[in-house]
């Protein structure tokens, strides 16, 4: 069970209260009409699946119902950092 710090509530809570939403920092193409099928397909369907540091989007589903980002090690499950939407991670994979 992960113990996750919610940056909006300012408190650590049990994983039970949260839902993972997937990879963070996915930007929708500014002009979808100008996209090639490959670009659009990659935006829609293709996600990273790294072994090691991963930036993820989570939602505090049972609490404040706000979204936030988390940098997590997929191998050790260690949570390196939690940061709000719009912010950039300070811990990044080399």
């Amino acid at each position, binding site marked *: 069970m992960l113990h996750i710090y919610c940056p*909006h*509530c*300012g*408190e650590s*809570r*049990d994983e*039970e*209260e949260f839902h993972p939403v997937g990879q963070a920092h996915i930007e929708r193409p500014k002009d979808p009409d100008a996209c090639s099928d490959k670009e659009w397909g990659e935006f829609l369907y293709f996600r990273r699946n790294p072994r090691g540091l991963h930036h993820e989007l989570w939602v505090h589903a*049972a*609490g*404040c*119902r*706000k979204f936030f980002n988390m940098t997590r090690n997929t191998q050790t499950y260690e949570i390196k950092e939690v940061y709000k939407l719009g912010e950039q991670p300070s811990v990044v994979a080399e």
Partner: protein
Amino acid sequence: MSDAMLNEKVEATKGKMVMNQIPADIVGESPLHHADLETLASRGQGQGGVHLKEKSLQGLLILRAKPDEVQLAEIESVLGVALPTTPLTSEEKAGEKGDISVRWVSPDEWFIVVPATVAFQLESDFQTSVSGHYSLVNVSSGYTILQLSGDNVVDVLKKSTPIDVHPSVFPIGKVVSSVFAKSGAMMLRRTGDNAFELIIRRSFADYIWLWLQDASMEYGLVIEA
């Protein structure tokens, strides 16, 4: 409805375009009506480690806003208490018309508990006195409030929620939203040394009533009316 009647109705409600969702001439029914807590309370066990009381048919409002200083002041003057902007806190005040309690839910959301008779007036006051962008929704029919107290109330909560309710991290007035007995939405607030208040969804009321009976069986459950 004819156009003339409709226009008349629109004119009459101008400036306070809110509907009174808890009219005085209709008797409300608590989601635990079928459990008949009053009869259970009158039979009385007298002793037990957990005391349960349903505070039914309150006026419950959800306020959503990202207030600036001007709006904060306007909201405070309408509510009579300051909006708690610190996470997981609540404010309450006894008023002439009844107590008001304002609870932090998320950075832009607050839960307001007032007596049912005051809710409509509060909504109207918001319409006339608060400027800017906000949303105030009457959700009275969607929730009910359970008050839990007694020496063993913490033991029951430990079975039901992952929240740490020790006084060192859960002081009086603190309010959290979390999971409770696997059910989705709930708000828990400490109102006294061994007293908590639980706001649960109407549709989960019967399930939680059954859960609480089971969870407090070993300590003895006393129903209060």
